[in-house]
């Protein structure tokens, strides 16, 4: 029973931000309870699917090459968000990112050496050895060692808040109603992308066809509760980060392996066998994120990337084997598309391809002429059978709606004042900095920086 105890701090969530907050507060003497909705085997939220975080640094370190100045980092952020960011919080986060890797190391997180093989991001991003689950395991082990109390299978269902002041929380502890008393609260419960009904409110019935790349436990219950109880919202409730992933992926927790990198070398058609967007608009990392939305706008939220044999080895292998056909018509049959229409689309495309020198490593200008929509790079005829197809669906990474915080991670109330004892960290407040778009590795940086600040602030509050 949790009802009989009294804690200094309640932390909601079991991902990166929650653990950074719990560890920091515990190290400063606070008694801490972490409530994680997931069972132990599935703990760690979306953080367990991550692989790196983005850090500013002035000189090469053991885990990062060259340098990445605060200014350059901020410019990258401005570029992806189009300016939808709180500059003060953003600059502070970027500055603090310089100091996180040694802190993480001391708490058991290990990184890959910076020279490691295939990683083109090793200048800006530090890669976790073993990925995010290894990171989460290390933090849980450290928390256990330091005396943080962790309960799994414990969902926080409702917060007792009086005029912006946290009193306690109703929880379901292994399925049974219970209550937690604590002097301060850190909410680090992620976004609401695991909540299909909520997604449906924003996107309509098409949301039923979305695949959620991460944990099913991020249902946004705490976000909704906080907003209902006077917290100031932040971010666009109708936006989410979605990429095109393999339609055969599991509904939840498919993680990184369901990603598909073949779009730039393919033609992409919808279930009417028609193309709908320039597949060669830009290099894939830059265009990766728009394809989720593009597919979401197609009938039944499905599309098919089609390539021929010569393209098969140009992209990272995928977990699901491509669907194969000796002819375009045969392939169409397997995809349940109209063979005549697909054949017509391919013929039309092939006829529009202009001669050019194909170069997969950069924008090569190999394009179509007189085709709508055009393909402006890597346009090559589909003429080497067998032909292959990968089905695509929108895969949601995270949602943008959250709570507004200040530089001490305090939750802002709608009346304009910060809460005295309620703090937020991670995805639930990431929109303050990443208002739109995506910058690889920023989510974990925000979680780490704000987790630490929230932990510190909570400890300061309870020790005062």
């Amino acid at each position, binding site marked *: 029973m949790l009802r009989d105890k009294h804690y200094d701090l309640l932390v909601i969530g079991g991902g990166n931000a929650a653990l950074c907050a719990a560890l920091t507060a515990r190290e400063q003497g606070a008694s801490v309870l972490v409530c994680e909705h997931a069972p132990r*085997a*599935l703990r760690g939220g979306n953080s*367990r*699917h991550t*692989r790196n975080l983005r850090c500013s640094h002035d000189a090469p370190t053991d885990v990062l090459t060259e340098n990445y100045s605060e200014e350059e980092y901020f410019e990258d952020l401005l570029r992806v968000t189009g300016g939808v960011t709180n500059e003060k919080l953003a600059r502070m986060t970027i500055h603090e990112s310089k100091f996180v890797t040694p802190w993480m190391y001391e708490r058991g997180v*290990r990184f*890959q*050496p910076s020279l*490691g*093989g*295939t990683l083109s991001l090793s200048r800006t991003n530090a*890669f*976790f*050895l*073993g*990925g*995010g*689950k*290894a990171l989460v*395991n290390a933090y849980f*082990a450290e928390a256990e060692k330091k005396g943080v109390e962790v309960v799994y299978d414990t969902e926080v269902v409702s917060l007792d808040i009086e005029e912006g002041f946290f009193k306690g929380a109703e929880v379901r502890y292994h399925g049974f109603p219970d209550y937690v008393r604590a002097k301060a609260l850190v909410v680090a419960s992620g976004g609401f992308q695991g909540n299909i009904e909520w997604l449906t409110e924003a996107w309509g019935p098409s949301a039923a066809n979305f695949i959620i790349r991460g944990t099913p436990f991020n249902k946004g219950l705490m976000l909704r509760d906080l907003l209902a109880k006077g917290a100031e919202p932040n971010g666009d409730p109708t936006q989410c980060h979605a990429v095109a992933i393999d339609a055969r992926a*599991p509904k939840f*927790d498919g*993680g*990184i*392996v369901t*990603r598909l990198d073949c779009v730039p070398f393919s033609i992409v058609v919808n279930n009417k066998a028609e193309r709908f967007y320039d597949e060669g608009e830009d290099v894939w990392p830059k265009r990766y994120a728009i394809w989720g939305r593009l597919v979401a706008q197609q009938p039944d939220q499905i599309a098919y990337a089609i390539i021929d044999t010569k393209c098969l*080895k140009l992209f*990272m*292998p*995928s*977990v699901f084997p491509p669907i194969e056909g000796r002819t375009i018509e045969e392939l169409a049959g397997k995809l349940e598309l109209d063979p005549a229409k697909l054949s017509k689309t391919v013929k039309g495309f092939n006829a529009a391809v202009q001669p050019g020198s194909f170069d997969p490593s950069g924008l090569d200008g190999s394009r179509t002429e007189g085709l709508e929509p055009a393909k402006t790079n890597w346009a090559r005829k589909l003429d080497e059978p067998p032909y292959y197809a990968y089905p695509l669906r929108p895969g949601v990474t995270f949602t943008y709606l959250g709570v507004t915080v200040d530089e001490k991670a305090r939750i802002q109330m709608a009346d304009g004042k910060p809460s005295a004892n309620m703090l937020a960290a991670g995805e639930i407040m990431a929109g303050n900095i990443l208002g739109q778009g995506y910058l690889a590795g920023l989510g974990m940086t925000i979680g780490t920086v704000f987790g630490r600040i929230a932990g510190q602030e909570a400890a300061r509050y309870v020790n005062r």
Partner: protein
Amino acid sequence: MSIAEQPVSLVGLARGLQGATLEESRRTMEICNACRYCEGYCAVFPAMELHRSFSNRDLVHLANLCHGCKGCFYACQYAPPHEFGLNLPKVFAELRRESYEHHAWPGALAGLFQKNGLFVSLATGLLLIAVMLLSALLVDPQALFGVNRGPGSFYAVIPYEVMVALGSLSFGYAVLALVMGLRNYWRESGAKQVGGKALALGLHDALTLRHLSGGGHGCNDTHEGFTQSRRWLHQAMMWGFLLSFASTSVATIYDHVFGWIAPYSWYSAPVVLGTLGGFGLTIGSGGLFWMKFKTDPEPTAQRNFGMDMGLLAQLFLVAVTGLALLFFRHTSAMGMLLVIHLGFVLALFVSLPYGKFVHGLYRFAALVRHHADQRAASQEEGSAS
């Protein structure tokens, strides 16, 4: 027909390799290859990244390259209860054992891997009895219980010729069978070309057990936490084994070349090497034995338990009886101890080619191929850019 070319359905019929283990290994590698989060842990992942699809021979190579450190199990976002249910250390341990069986020489004895624990115990029991009977029949039964001192005292228990014949026959056979098995393995899963550099790097990785260090900070020896215990215990055991082996070799030279007859004095090379080796073996195998019971069984192959335990027990018993012989050689216990030690040693020799021991050779071969492959790949990359 090599396993690489066999259609999957036939592979199931081939000795050792089972279609199901190969298929599960392939499925696992295909998911890992799309993920690659574990690439910093060990050699398996960089080796995997050289492929887009995995032939049977590649899978056997990768399985033998794996050191079973379990790092990639606890770090895996797709481990059970995820619907992908990945358990790489387990399936690779199973495939490794199947590959030992598949390549065993002569093929007719491959089945000994199946009930390895039983085979090892039977071999040990029978050889113990055989040595005792030999001693009792060839020498006076009283010799077993008398006090014998000075040069040649061992031969008062077992005649010199008999000891030499038993030792060289069983050891010679073991070497032959091991070499033939390794040859079978290399033909199917080795590299096409190997330079001196790859050989040296492979030897270095094998002797330092580099990949049982989890990329530096230790392995998940028994659970989610990281330690280096397994690595150090195995080092004690492996070097203990090599030292004991060196001891026997030096003693053989003393005997045959110089005519110096055992037992040797406390500070002689064979005794010093043997004592150090004996302690290393005892501590190493005893420690690993203990860890086997402590460890989380999920990422291990329960099917291999008997085989792993068999060799551990043999090494432990050889070492303990050897040390006992050393300490009590001047007492009336010497005769019995010598016979028992000899029985264990002979049993170890005859079971070497059909048990866990072959992993040392196969792993070494896999490490050599790994370095050869990596060099070839980086040269290809160099000439392409």
